[in-house]
């Protein structure tokens, strides 16, 4: 059985460093504050929405909606799961609500993402590489079933453990593993095909 990641990304703070020495005691809701939660998990939620197929120009809204719900629910959060798990569950539901709406999921807005990449100051070559990676990623994610895609994104991109994913999605951990293995096979095969294709066409 393949091992699942055991170390999540360590939500970066605004400076990109891990949250400063947050112990369970010190990390109470009142100490942490909404700002810190937003800053620590904004990237996670934003990326998750993008990978789940929310078009580039709607991501800001979807992410905002996630944090409005977080803000609203913060006081009712009981701390029985990790904050990231709790937040992943909210993001899962909000994003799912979005992508399930008819007409809400047009083809990828790569143009917008490309402009975004260039705005980040990366070279055109690097931007192109990233754009291709995103296109490939989206194509391969598209080949997965919804349940496989969900688990794959949370595990392989967002580095949640199978336990966390099971908590966030409300499913059995074994189910997570099964779906993940199937998704990995699809992804490996897709990347291999893409590489073979590139070699074939390369002069």
């Amino acid at each position, binding site marked *: 059985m*393949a091992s699942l990641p*055991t170390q*999540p990304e*360590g939500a970066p703070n*605004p400076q990109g460093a891990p*949250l400063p020495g947050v*112990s369970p005691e010190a990390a*109470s*809701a*009142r100490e942490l*504050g*909404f*700002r810190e939660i*937003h800053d620590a998990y904004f990237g996670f939620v*934003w*990326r998750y929405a993008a*990978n789940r197929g929310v078009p580039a*120009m*709607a991501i800001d*809204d979807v992410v*905002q*909606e996630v*944090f*409005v719900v977080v*803000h*609203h*629910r*913060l*006081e*009712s*959060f*009981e*701390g029985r*799961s*990790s*904050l*990231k*798990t*709790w937040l992943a*569950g909210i993001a899962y*539901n*909000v994003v799912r*609500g*979005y992508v399930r*709406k008819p007409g809400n999921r047009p083809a990828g807005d790569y143009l*917008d993402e490309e402009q975004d990449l260039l705005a980040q100051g990366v070279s055109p070559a690097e931007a192109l590489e*990233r*754009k291709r*990676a995103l296109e*490939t990623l989206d194509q391969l994610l598209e080949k997965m079933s919804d349940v496989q895609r969900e688990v794959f994104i949370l595990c*392989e991109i967002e580095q949640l*453990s199978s*336990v966390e994913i*099971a*908590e966030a999605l409300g499913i059995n951990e074994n189910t997570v593993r099964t779906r993940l*293995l199937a998704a*990995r096979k699809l*992804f490996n095969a897709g*990347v291999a095909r893409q*590489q073979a294709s590139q070699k074939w066409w390369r002069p």
Partner: protein
Amino acid sequence: MVETMSDNELRPAARNLLDVARTARTPSDQRRERAYQALVAGLGGTAAVGTAKVAVAAGKVAAQGTFAWFKWALPAALAVSGGIGAYVWSMPEPAAPSSPAPVRAPAEVEAPTAAPAQPLEAPVAADSRSAQPEAEIKLAAPSPKPSAKPAGDALVQELSLLHEALAASRSGNAARALELAREHAQRYPASRLGIERSAIEVRSLCSLGRPAEARKVADRLRARAPSSPVSAALKDTCVGK
């Protein structure tokens, strides 16, 4: 090596691709900051919501740059009742220099009512905690507020309806937007989101070529909330002055 690796794990090429894509899809600090300001700018006067820090932050950034055409608001009145929020609505504008991130359609999200808190907490077994660093970022269990949830859920439903109306309006379906706005008025006659609803109504009526009706609604809106940004946002409509 790569060829013999089990498909149970990602192969290096797949992992590399994911790393590149992950980096590409990680928003910049500027984007995060803009998003936060847009979010909190809508939290004006939310002393009773969330944490004290939220209220402080809201005070600092209120009225600063927000999404040009859409933002959430959490009025104090909603906050006191544990409510979730409201829309402050304005038409799309050209991207301002200070907010280059283009924003398009509304997040047409189904009512998140069924989503967040309870189902997420429910499946967590006491012994199934992750031992990961982030798992340590736990929030202390707050004192229970049994009365807050129903009110909040009702507001989420309200928001969902208005959200749908807003989406219809923005997609050019003014008739549907108007229908939904009026459905909202019927279902929630005493809603705290009446101002936002009226704004949708005004724009829809303008789009449908019914300026006289639009003006009536706008007049009521302005009388009720003369200094509201929602009122100000109607300047570019058929009732603008």
